[in-house]
């Protein structure tokens, strides 16, 4: 995914043909024909200037990741003694390359298990905030109730509460409940160390941003559309699930990918609420162990970073086609 062909692919694949673009990157064929720009690409701009500027930005963005990728395939001594770009001077030299870093990372105790754990944490921690935020965003936009504006303002305002400051109070809540003057308001739930504890924490922390982004999008759906559903006798629940949710696919997909990434790459929340025991360890924790037991092992860290990137990238590529919904294109934004 990060080799030089990608940048050349940007230029070579100009003519809508899959040539020059790796199959993994391309969208599945036969989806959303609307995605292709309806007008001839850049009538006034010309194709080449556009292609060249896109390639330049893409190349700049790719260089750091390329360094990471190359380093992950280099033996330790070389990582410490010469720059990663020097490999291009002797590409054919086998002593410059090794798969040992990846072997070490994958063999390290329970990496497969930690992948499953990460998945069990991440999927519900992505679906829950989106679902809850979508219901709330719909209510904030299309339902009448006292305090609607004030409550929404409060929700958005909560975006700024730093996650790190919430960890200790929540931990206390999980382990010993909440009492006002000795009377238990929230009982001692003993949630700590359970998946539910992590899901709910990620959901709580992700909700303000999700509600904010979804409210912005759902608010831009035309009133006439919602009204007509009402005229047809649809209740709020039906309007929401059958009309508003499908119409909001692009924003749901966008937010889903980001929430997925944040949770997948999170170390702190998992560490605090799930603990660091080997059987519940998530990928980021496994990576940290890798580094912790061997000092600044850059060659291992780079390989580990790539292994942990695989799933997020798969999610990104599979969600990419939903970023543009066939329904919304040309029908919704006012």
């Amino acid at each position, binding site marked *: 995914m990060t080799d030089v062909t990608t940048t050349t692919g940007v230029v070579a694949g100009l003519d809508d043909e899959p040539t020059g673009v790796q199959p993994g990157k391309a969208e599945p064929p036969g989806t959303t024909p609307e995605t*292709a720009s309806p007008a001839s690409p850049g009538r006034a701009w010309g194709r080449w200037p556009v292609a060249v500027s896109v390639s330049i*930005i893409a190349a700049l963005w790719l260089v*750091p*990741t390329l360094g*990471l990728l190359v380093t992950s395939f280099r033996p330790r001594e070389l990582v410490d003694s010469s720059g990663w770009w020097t490999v291009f001077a002797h590409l054919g030299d086998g002593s410059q390359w090794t798969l040992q870093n990846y072997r070490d990372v994958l063999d390290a105790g329970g990496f497969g298990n930690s992948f499953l754990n990460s998945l069990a944490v991440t999927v519900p921690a992505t679906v829950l905030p989106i679902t809850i935020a979508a219901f709330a965003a719909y209510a904030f936009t299309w339902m009448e109730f006292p305090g609607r504006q004030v409550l929404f303002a409060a929700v958005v305002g909560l975006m700024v509460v730093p996650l*790190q400051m919430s960890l200790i109070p*929540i931990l206390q809540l999980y382990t010993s409940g909440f009492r006002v003057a000795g009377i238990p308001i929230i009982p001692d739930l003993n949630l700590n160390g359970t998946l539910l504890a992590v899901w709910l924490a990620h959901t709580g922390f992700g909700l303000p941003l999700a509600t904010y*982004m979804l409210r912005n999008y759902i608010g831009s759906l035309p009133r006439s559309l919602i009204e007509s559903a009402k005229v047809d006798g649809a209740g709020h629940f039906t309007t929401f699930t059958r009309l508003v949710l499908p119409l909001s696919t692009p924003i749901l997909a966008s937010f889903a990918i980001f929430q997925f990434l944040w949770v997948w790459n999170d170390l702190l929340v998992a560490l605090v609420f799930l603990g660091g025991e080997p059987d519940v360890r998530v990928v980021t924790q496994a990576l940290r162990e890798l580094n912790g037991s061997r000092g600044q092992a850059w060659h291992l860290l780079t390989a580990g970073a790539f292994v*942990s990137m695989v799933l997020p990238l798969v999610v990104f590529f599979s969600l990419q086609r939903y970023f543009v919904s066939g329904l919304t294109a040309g029908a919704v934004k006012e």
Partner: protein
Amino acid sequence: MSNQLLQVIIALVVGVGGIWLLYWGADRLVNMLPLRAATALRPWVFVGPALLLLTVYLVYPAINTIVLSFRDRRGQGWVGFDNYVDIFSDENGRLAIRNSIAWVVVVPVLAVAIGLAFAVLADKLGRRTEAAAKSVIFLPMAISFVGASIVWRFIYNFRPEGFGEQTGLLNAIWQGLGNNPVAWLLSEPWNNLYLMVIMIWLYTGFAMVVLSSAIKSLPGEVLEAARVDGATEWQMFWRIVLPMISSTVMVVLTTILIIVWKVFDIVFVMTGGEFGTTIVAERMITEFFTFRNQGRGAAFAVLLFVAVLPFMTLNIRRFRAQEEMR
């Protein structure tokens, strides 16, 4: 392993399915009520779960933090406004505030500008090419902060002359041009900018993805009509596309601003806040967890959310305007 897999699958079904069952069931229950009661109650079925979770996970800790910011370093005795006075009278505290302001001006603006330009330009390419190009910009988002700091070590790394080959790309290029190697992360005040570049590199993908989906949902007829009328691409961008997606631009700008305002990892890992690179969020963590000064750490946290209030007011106004326009 298979046992583990089974557990994971059960967890997924319960976690994902449970929430839908909850809303569906609650809506059913409300339906059984008389019409007036149902109408009054239904909005709370929709917003209730969100409000409940927010109260527990954010409001309660926020109040806790505000109270703590008026207490001493062990979080026990009351000290009034001492922690706040300390922040503003301390040279490091003032530097953190100045640096943080620079971060929230530079990073969101550049990330959104580059992301928007890229989304617009890539939109003019073929579908597959566009997908490939966008993936490249998005790629850094998939890297954790710790991963990102490793990546950028291979860019910024510094070795004094005569201490071996440079392993940082920037110094290799710099030396190739005939200069002496530079300790990029130690050279004040520009090291702040070098750290910001990392954040821009990470978050341009976020801006690009959200803005691109806004651009793609613009009605094709409007753009086509403008083209027929002979508008140039440049005019179309400034007069049609940008005004039509302005609300999304605002959302993305605000979101990145808040993320940047709260982010501490990059500074924490790369320089530890030394060499004049300290920022408010990093101070908060350092005071609270490294120096174990709970009161001061909490005061920095309160500073974080007070500073963003004006932006929030601005956003609320915009949402009101959006409602009136409908």
